């Protein structure tokens, strides 16, 4: 029994050592990439670094348990994505405030009004633009460059530019803006 325990300990130590080596090697090779991905999702370096640490620790735990991970890079991306999505959900739930808790009726009305306006605007954008134009519009507002959008939609970047200007023209008409006002919008 004692011998079996000693063997188990030795095996666990060997697995942990191998896992530690693999984790460190992947971290040194790809940490910048994963960090940038996490930051692009949450726009907060501290949260991104926490997520990075958690993802790698889970990778270590999985390897120590003998899991066979064929594509570690994709595995880390998946864990990072799920972890950050969960954290964002948790944050939203924790900071959800009821109308009674707010206690500032005037501000509350203001917020509700602005939310309604935003909702209406989004509805108008969806109704006015075609699916492709809306996709362009959304990706551009997420901060992607024309070349990146073009690659994702399998079109040339000139086409993206054309779709964007068409979308802006349609939105000007839909919002009833005069030519001079709307030309300030820079995408």
């Amino acid at each position, binding site marked *: 029994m004692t011998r079996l325990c000693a063997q188990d*300990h030795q095996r666990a130590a060997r697995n942990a050592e191998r896992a530690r080596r693999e984790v460190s090697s992947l971290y040194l090779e790809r*940490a910048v990439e994963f960090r940038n991905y996490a930051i692009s999702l949450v726009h907060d370096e501290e949260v991104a670094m926490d997520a990075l640490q958690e993802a790698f620790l889970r990778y270590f735990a999985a390897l*120590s*348990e003998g899991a066979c991970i064929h594509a570690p890079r994709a595995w880390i991306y998946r864990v990072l994505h799920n972890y950050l999505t969960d954290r964002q959900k948790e944050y939203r739930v924790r900071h959800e405030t009821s109308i009674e808790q707010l206690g500032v009726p005037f501000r509350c009305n203001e917020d509700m009004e602005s939310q309604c306006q935003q909702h209406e605007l989004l509805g108008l954008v969806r109704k006015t633009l075609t699916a492709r134009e809306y996709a362009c519009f*959304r990706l551009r507002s997420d901060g992607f460059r024309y070349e*990146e959008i073009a690659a994702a939609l399998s079109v040339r970047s000139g086409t993206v530019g054309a779709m964007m200007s068409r979308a802006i023209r349609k939105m000007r008409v839909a919002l009833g803006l005069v030519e001079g006002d709307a030309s300030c919008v820079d995408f």
Partner: protein
Amino acid sequence: MRRLLRIINRLRAVHPPMEDLVEWADGAAQPALGHHLEACTTCRSQALHIRRASQTLEAAADLPALAVTLERLQTRMQAWHTVELYFGRKAAGRLAANSAGNLHVIQPMFRAFLGAAAADALAKQIAAVEC
């Protein structure tokens, strides 16, 4: 029946696995995935985020926060291994999931197995990486 369900699921517009998105981000041509990305905003955005992250030119040495994170990670891996040895994988897994929350609960167990000094040292080590 299961096989049939699997085929039906495949025929439905299911999101591609992360492995495929990473391959696409690296430039591998996959016509089926390309069609999905044209139609699915969520996957498209995710694939583009991966592509942008992987095309970065920054070096790890330029980001001191990465070195700090690696140091913390190594400490946590060591702590995980110690806990696994004495309390088993399940406990180590729980510790990995939420070390700060469980620390006050497991510290007495550390003491029982490791002795007061070693238990305090281990608890301090875990607490330090949480700060």
